[in-house]
């Protein structure tokens, strides 16, 4: 295979019907397990058949892969944490992981820090146009669409609309903007995210460019990606056709449009902050952060945070124990440890019981750091994180003068 853009689908009618877009990912994962190219597959399953309740599932039996079929927009999980926290960073097992672009980026960042073994991970990237929180989505289906959430069989975002499919096969659609006006919005981090196609994974899969065909558009992004797809094709698990120019163009068009929207949104957010004076900005953030109840939800959910002996814990002697809210250094330390590598996954804000807009804080700061250091978190595994790296150039700078011009402290 020299090309890297394909349309792919499973020749097995059953698998085709189970997955979205021709069941290609399902077929690929199943084949990988059957041929022992991985020890396990980590994917997402519906609990009690609910599209709003997802469980990360570690599968070793190829026969069970199909239980995870179907992309879920209403149950955004933190796939990275499972590997990092509960599976020893895949140090001694080979796992295929289905991941959104933010998951894939987080894996890359952790790999840079030796917290996951990149060689053991087969990252099956899934295109993502954004997700909704489960409880928001459930209410939206009930009140905006007027349907019983339990009747939901599928959902997709396309051309500015949310299209739902019900169990009886019928579909309904609504404008995303209309839904926003009614108070139903995607997760904040999704709205500003320009990483719609996860090229940092081994393969990137989605339906843009399939032009209505029951097939998945796959972009192969690494030699490992080629290896797995070759095996699947050779085993008859997948049918692959090189993408046509028309399909490639259509995909490019959709991606560009989505990325432009996200960039506009991001720009809007940053401009809004730039209009504040320093004092106003500080007041804004301190106001939100003062509600913190030290639940550690943000740290626990953050895919980048990995220290076993966390500096924020009271026994480390830095942040006094038992205080509500904790000393502001709690927030600042986490920021200084993570802000350069924030992948905008939004899990911190999802986890915060005090509704502190954490991804806003981290992404605004990250944007500034990204510009200063020309650093894109989670894209290039060979680009080291700026705040934990010293370059040759930096080593030869004269000791910085930290006393300000107007200071009377001299």
């Amino acid at each position, binding site marked *: 295979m020299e090309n890297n853009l394909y349309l792919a689908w499973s020749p097995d009618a059953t698998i085709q019907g189970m997955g979205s877009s021709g069941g290609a990912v399902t077929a690929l994962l199943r084949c990988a397990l059957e041929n022992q190219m991985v020890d396990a597959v980590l994917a997402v399953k519906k609990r009690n058949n609910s599209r709003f309740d997802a469980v990360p599932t570690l599968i070793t039996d190829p026969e069970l892969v199909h239980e995870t079929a179907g992309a879920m927009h209403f149950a955004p999980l933190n796939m990275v944490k499972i590997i990092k926290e509960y599976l020893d960073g895949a140090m001694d097992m080979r796992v295929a992981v289905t991941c959104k672009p933010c998951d894939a980026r987080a894996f890359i960042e952790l790999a840079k820090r030796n917290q996951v073994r990149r060689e053991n991970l087969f990252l099956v990237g899934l295109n993502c146009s954004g997700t909704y929180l489960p409880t928001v989505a459930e209410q939206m289906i009930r009140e905006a669409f007027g349907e019983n959430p339990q009747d939901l069989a599928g959902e997709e975002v396309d051309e500015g609309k949310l299209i739902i499919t019900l169990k009886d096969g019928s579909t309904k659609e609504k404008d995303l903007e209309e839904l926003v006006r009614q108070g139903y919005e995607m997760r904040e981090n999704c709205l500003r995210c320009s990483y719609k196609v996860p090229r940092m994974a081994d393969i990137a899969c989605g339906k843009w460019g399939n032009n209505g065909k029951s097939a998945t558009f796959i972009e192969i992004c690494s030699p490992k990606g080629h290896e797995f797809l070759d095996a699947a094709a050779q085993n008859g698990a997948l049918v692959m056709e090189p993408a046509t120019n028309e399909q490639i163009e259509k995909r490019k068009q959709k991606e560009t449009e989505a990325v432009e929207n996200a960039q506009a949104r991001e720009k809007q957010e940053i401009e809004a902050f730039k209009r504040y004076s320093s004092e106003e900005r500080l007041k804004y953030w301190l106001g939100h952060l003062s509600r913190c109840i030290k*639940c550690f939800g943000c740290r626990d959910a953050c895919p980048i945070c990995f220290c076993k002996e966390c500096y924020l814990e*009271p026994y480390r002697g830095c942040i006094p124990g038992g205080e*509500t809210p904790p000393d502001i250094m709690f927030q600042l330390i986490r920021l200084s440890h993570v802000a350069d590598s924030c992948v905008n996954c939004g899990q911190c804000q999802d986890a915060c019981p*005090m509704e502190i807009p954490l991804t806003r804080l981290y992404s605004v700061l990250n944007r500034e750091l990204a510009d200063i250091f020309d650093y894109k978190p989670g894209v290039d595994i060979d680009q080291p994180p700026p705040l934990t790296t010293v370059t040759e150039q930096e080593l030869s700078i004269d000791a910085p003068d930290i006393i300000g011009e107007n200071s009377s402290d001299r």
Partner: protein
Amino acid sequence: MNAIEHIPTVCPCCGCGCGIELVLKNGEIAGVEPLKSHPVCKGKNCLKGKNAYLYANSEERLTTPLIKKNGKHEACSWDEALDWIAQKLSEADRDAVGFINSGKCTNEDLYLIQKFARIVCKTNNLDNASRFCHSTSVPALLSTVGAGVMPTSTPSIEKADCVLIMGANIQETYPLLAQKVIIARTKGAKIITADLRRTPTVKNLTDLHLQIHPGTDAALINGMMKIILDQGLANTDFIEKRTSGFDELKAYLDTLDLQEIEKITGIKTEQMKDAALSYASAHNACIMFNAGIAQHAGGVETIQTLADMALLTGNYGKPGSGVNPLRGHSNGEGFGDMGTVPVFYPGFQKVNEETAGRFASMWDAADLPAKPGLTYMEMVEKCPFLYIMGANPAMSAPDINALRKAFEKKELVIVQDIFMTETAQMADVVLAGACGAEKDGTQTGVDRRVQRLRKAIAPVGDALPDWQILCRLAEKMGAGEHFAFKTSEEIFEEIRNCVPQYRGITYERLEQAGGIQWPCPDEGHPGTETMFVEKFGTPDGLAHFQAAPYKAPLEPPDDAYPYILTTGRLNFHFHTGSMTRRTERLQNEISEAFAEISPQDSENTGIADGEEVILRSRRGEVKTRARVTPDIKAGQVFLPWHFPQCLANILTGPSAGPPSRMPEFKFSAIQIEKVESDGK
């Protein structure tokens, strides 16, 4: 190959009823995650929830039954322990046994303990810590709206455009309720908090703080009602259609003088007006109250005034409104529903001949007790035999010195628990219980939400679920036929038959995250979000105004004991800390008590921040370290009650009379004394 499983269950640490997932790695608990699809917590937990059930693996877990021999607890078999208990209990007179149970147990455990007490011991001597927190709420709300439960659904608090928080520090004690208030506030709701201290809730979530003189809330609310009436903001339509007794209330309010109320409460008339007008002009005004209101001798009156004010303004029967008592325990609603109290059989059916007769046929058992039983402290004082399941009165009861003396004289003290608690230390027999991660069952949280607890791991050692222990004991006492349950689900099926509010709930229907809110009369019914939409729970379906004057506390400060002590809870611990003090991350945050005193008192007494201080009441003394803070007023002292090295309840004492018999935890008179540096 590692096996990872996610078991959805409910956090054991408060009444919010947040969904959590226990993450099992190869069958052992490896972590806890918030449940994202849960309608109450929505993927968020507080620090207690994030560490839920990690104490299951503590080395301190009780793993076998223990019998005290020569002053020491020694391990024994279940048969040995239960045979001995069976023998002693069979010799006991009717009503000589008292059953103290707990909101930490499941509905199934609780249903069985009341069945045991009533069938085997023929007594209604059953009570629990609801005596200590909502024994005032129940009579107050029964007399006004006909039910002592939270009428609103937790998620709907977001719809309120005015929230009045009375005597509750929700940011620390019910974080996921605070989350709803935060959302409401983001949408423009006005948040008013009445609290004698400047708590985190006051500082971070509140627009108007009424820093009220302790225990005077009834005067404040009566004053606010007077203002609402005078300003013509009463909801006359609602009053006419859905209430009775308005004229009597109005006549009483007309006698009040706002200047007097200012003097009593310490709240300026302007602030009262601000609060009253905001509350009365809201579309959905929501009142939340907790121990700061209820744990007073005058608690019944205060809660009646709250109900009056909600009725006056039509704030009942719609989402995001009502007067909402916050049950503390994770099964804080269930341990009322199951009838484990001296005046109700299951389902709030009053203890009397008729009810006893009905249950006798239902249970096929004769001669069930038909007279109300003893309350908590009455049992502690009078019952020679005590069966204590999941409760820790050695830390949670008032006047601990007196309790300890009473325990020394007991014939038999049985404690069934998961740890060697302070109470278990005094027990003759200790029965090792399984914790909530080790058994199936149901729990009912603040907003009447019945949820499934799921067994994730096997009980440690020889520990058994509470309900199984009761079945075995019943068997040994010849009542096995009434306790032939093989699973918790079988017990739940029996519960559904005699608790009308649970009739439509089944384990199968409870599979969905968030459970079902009662009343749920039949299996097709979705459960009830908001109560009193059409009718109140009173016999005539109308709400009844109750003119309720402010009642002074039982032990006012005087020259001998000039300071007012109030007790309360912190973000990092739950109640007597039996679970949280054995959870590493929580215990690392804070493991010792402190006494909050004002800068003025610090100056007057010479007690500096961090210095040792003795607090003394008529009943005893404790030593701790002072925390000097402007968040508390001069003349007042705050103590958390989580820590055994500084038992706040050595100091507390007097209790109200019937119907509540509420200990006045929130108001005791104390002295404070500097500890001299040479140890004197």
